[in-house]
């Protein structure tokens, strides 16, 4: 394996959690998961010569992961429409119960809102989210306000 290949593989290895996270937020078919995992690595490798290190590798990989998942031909996401919130033990006020409730609530958002809230909860600033999404900082703030309202209402209704 040549030196750029090794460097790239090491960076992917270190940041693979980001790929898993993006896939888990959007996909629930095992075959799609496998395909998308390989596809994100493929698209990252193809774009790697343009990576200039102006942003962190993790942010860059997050962006590629999201772009790949959103523009990939996926099987219909049954979980988006039929996932029943009551099937989770969310009434229980344990960290696991709350996180499951949050997961289901996030999965009920549209795909772009899902991306914005996950970046926000991951600690990205509105400006960084704007750069990833291609929106202004103010537009992101407006969207986040609305998404949080929807999430809180959904979670309160449980």
């Amino acid at each position: 394996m040549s030196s750029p290949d090794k460097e790239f593989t090491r960076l992917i290895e270190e940041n693979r959690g980001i790929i898993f996270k993006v896939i888990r937020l959007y996909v629930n078919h095992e075959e799609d998961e496998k395909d998308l995992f390989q596809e994100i690595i493929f698209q990252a490798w193809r774009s790697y010569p343009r990576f200039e290190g102006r942003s962190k590798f993790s942010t860059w990989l997050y962006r590629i992961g999201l772009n790949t998942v959103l523009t990939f031909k996926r099987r219909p996401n049954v979980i988006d429409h039929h996932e029943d919130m009551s099937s989770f033990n969310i009434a229980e006020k344990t960290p696991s119960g709350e996180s499951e409730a949050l997961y289901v609530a996030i999965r009920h958002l549209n795909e772009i809102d899902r991306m914005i809230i996950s970046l926000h909860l991951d600690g990205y600033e509105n400006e960084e989210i704007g750069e990833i999404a291609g929106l202004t900082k103010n537009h992101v703030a407006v969207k986040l306000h609305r998404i949080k309202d929807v999430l809180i209402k959904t979670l309160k209704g449980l």
Partner: protein
Amino acid sequence: MDLKEAWKTLERERLIQPVNGTIAIPKHSKHPVTKLIQTFGLGLVFCVFFESIFVYLLFAMEQTIVKVGLGIIVVLYTILFMINYKVLQKLRRLHKSDEAVLKVLQGVHSIVSQTIKFQQKLSWGFFPMCVAGGFVLGVSIKKDAAAMIVQPKFYIALIVTMAVFTPASYFLTKWMTRISYGKYLGQIEELIQQTKGD
């Protein structure tokens, strides 16, 4: 509920759990746009292959009328190659996965729509002409083409061939692109609207 705390638990317990797959640099892509670009590349290879055959036949054939027919086909294939190449370069420039999400979505939308338009233009113009060229060539192999083209039945057959193949290739292309990319284009449009919304 503290959303950030719940998110951390969610991340730990579910989101960053490994999915199947090995960390190796894959050689092939299943991404629709990458596939489109590969198809265009393959189209160029076929263009060169067929053009080489027609150029060879142009020199090998003796009848003037056949040479004229082949010359037209060679010119058409050269134009087709140039257009194909130009579109391919444009698609390659547009397809960058490391840009902002909205830009990538708009790029993918533009690539798919342009490809569909390009294929529909081809189905109206190039395919029927190539069919007609092939028809003339086919007729000329066994009989004297110069004698054939003065007969009215030759023109009737040629007109019928073009009249059948022109709409047929148009509707076939339209149907194939709708099956392959219609739903996909709709999904991308929806994502663009979701991104711009609020």
